[in-house]
């Protein structure tokens, strides 16, 4: 957040500020990522005090931003549409180092069989009153498509996966990997999991589309 705030300052984007004694700029990031996850596609909403051209906005921001974080596309939206509420799916590329099993076909098979289950349980801490207790949660409904892509040049297993994200259901990639490690017995090096979020999607009538 600090990064963007400074960018708005540096590039003199006319961002709107909140009222009161401690004004802060009005912008938010949709479903922010946990620490340690890479991304190729994120969404942000910004309230501007005055209109500027999209081209101008992108140019100014990209000049100020670190070269690894760039604005790809921008558009104005009407009033109260919140892009955060609209988004319900996240698409990830996950790279794992596994010790058992080197045949891609076998891995595809056991993964497919595993995903046929109605229930895949994980245990999570949930608030109950003032305490946090451990509860079992079924993550199967939160899993969209999972595709085992193959091994990369460094012998990492590459998987693409679509998970639900947001208030109506949220699956963290590491929770999925944890369950996968436990059930498929592939002996995943849990310290060396590389996660990259490729995109975020909204859903309508069973079809996925980009909020852009």
């Amino acid at each position, binding site marked *: 957040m*600090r990064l963007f705030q*400074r*960018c*708005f*300052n540096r590039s003199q984007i006319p961002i709107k500020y909140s009222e009161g*004694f401690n004004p802060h700029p009005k912008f938010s990031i949709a479903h922010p990522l946990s620490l340690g996850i890479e991304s190729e596609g994120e969404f942000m909403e910004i309230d501007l005090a005055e209109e500027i051209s999209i081209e101008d906005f992108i140019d100014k921001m990209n000049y100020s931003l*670190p070269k*690894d974080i760039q604005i790809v596309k921008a558009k104005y939206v009407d009033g109260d549409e919140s892009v955060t509420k609209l988004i319900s799916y996240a698409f990830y590329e996950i790279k794992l180092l596994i010790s058992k099993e080197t045949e891609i076909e076998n891995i595809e098979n056991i993964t497919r069989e595993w995903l046929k289950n109605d229930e895949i349980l994980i245990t999570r801490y949930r608030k109950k009153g003032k305490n946090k207790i451990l509860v079992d949660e079924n993550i199967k409904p939160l899993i969209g498509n999972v595709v085992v892509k193959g091994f990369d040049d460094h012998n990492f297993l590459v998987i693409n996966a679509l998970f639900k994200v947001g208030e109506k259901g949220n699956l963290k990639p590491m929770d999925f990997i944890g369950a996968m490690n436990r059930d498929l017995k592939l002996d995943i090096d849990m*310290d*060396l999991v590389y996660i990259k979020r490729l995109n975020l999607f909204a859903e309508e009538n069973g079809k996925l589309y980009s909020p852009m």
Partner: protein
Amino acid sequence: MIDKQKLDKILKKVEKPARYIGMEQNSVQKDLEEMYVKFAFSFPDVYEVGMSHLGMHILYNLINNEDDFACERVFAPWVDMEEEMRDIGLPLFTLESKEEVINFDILGFTLQYEMSYTNILNILDLSNIPLLSKDRDENYPIIIAGGPCAYNPEPLADFIDFFVIGEGEEVVLEVLNLYKEHKANYIKDIFLEDVAKIEGIYVPKFYDVSYNDDGTLKSMKANRKGIKEKIKKRIIKNIDTMFSPEKMIVPYIETVHDRVSMELFRGCTHGCRFCQAGMIYRPIREKSVDRLMELADKLVESTGYENISLSSLSSCDYTNLRILISMLMDKYEDRKVGVSLPSLRLDSFSIDVLKEIEKVRKTGLTFAPEAGSQRLRDVINKGVSEEDLINAVSYAFKEGWSRIKLYFMIGLPTETDEDVLGIKDLAYLVRDLFFNRPKEERLGNFSVSASASCFVPKPFTPFQWVGQNSVDEFMRKIYLVKNSIKDNKVKFNYHDATLSYLEAIFARGDRKLSKLLLKAWEKGCKYDGWSEYFKYDLWIEAMEETDTDGEFYALRDRDTQELFPWDFIDIGVSKKYLLREYKKAMAGETTNDCRLGCTGCGIPDCVMRGESVGN
């Protein structure tokens, strides 16, 4: 370069991994293979503390502006990261290229406070660099150090190859250029002999020290031909034209100071007798308003920070402060960039200045009376009267501020219990000033806090002859004040006396302390400046095991004839002057601010006077 996969693994396990990744806005990564001189700069504390150090930004940009030189940063890894690094076998690396520190040509430390010394040893160890200078040959980086504590470098003499005494803007480049010349046929000893010729450079190995039977210093003599007996500090004559960074690295995580720091001037004219900075940074030199506006422009533009801090030893003394502030407010108010002053003089002028920069009175105000009674304030030459305090505070309350912080020291020379209780008196006075106002004129929620630190006598001050109070004495006085404060609107905070004791040992220490430092580090002492990690017990053990008498260094009153370990350094201000000030202090006599008339401290060519006056 280090094994990046190992780094990735452990980054996921530590707190605030952004401390170790670099890649910040305005950081500079060069191709190290192409560089003639690779310099690693280290502030020996954690990232957030080191990144707030203005000196780091100055040196970093100064060196990187040269095509042939590269400057990369390395800070002390936090305790959790260190454990992971040692576990997995990852050596210490610089942030920019992730290159092992041991592969750099020169590793430079800034010495900002004595209790960071164990971190220095730890950084060397984590880099697989031998700790003692004599154990390092041409295969290791040259280890150098500068900064305020370099004015008494002796406790570190066995570990550091050479010290840079004084301001770095010119001498650092001179050193790097000399190194560049030596690089092709680099022989450490020959390089050291050559670098010793540069003014301000002190190479400990070229001096022999001997001690009297009572442990005091007997002599310090050059042991090689051509080595100067006295080292003169470096100062920049014209700070308006000197290098000043136009960019600052912008960290990703919150650091201690998330703002643009601008130096208004160097030096100070008040002459407070406890203050080392006021003596070692003389003569006073100011930057022009134009230069400052130019720098502010470039710095705000390159960083996007929302605040500009006008820092100096006593910013309110800047000759053209009102003009500067109004120009800054004009330019930056709409862009929501604020201006802040780190400290305030105790007078209404400061409040007026503050009124301009703080439209909303949200912060508290901090004043530093330093001593609780007028008598003691005169002894330490803190030119502040009770009337000043009353005027300043009343004015502040009238203008809408309601939170006041007062800074004091305990353990000042000639201090009596009555002086100490004066702290409570002043705090109560502030409280009364607020509540004596008619109810409708009391704005905001009132609070006053008095903070007392434990006085540590420092080298190159009039109090360098004075013994520190013992830890027991400090605690007795602290409780005296604490128990006398019964109002819950008046808060009293105090510093750790045992830490101050250790600080006092090293501040006026000699070379014999290297044994203690080494032993303390071996026992696991590090991050001593952090209360959660300071292990007083281990330090006491280390003192016993190395036969070090801490009281000899900290508590002893010095004889006026005694030779000090730091006397070989010429800071401009004469020892004669310091002694004169010490005697005046004992007699309770004050000395005026030298802006009002030269006090003859010994600085030649001082711009305050305009012409040279002999000593």
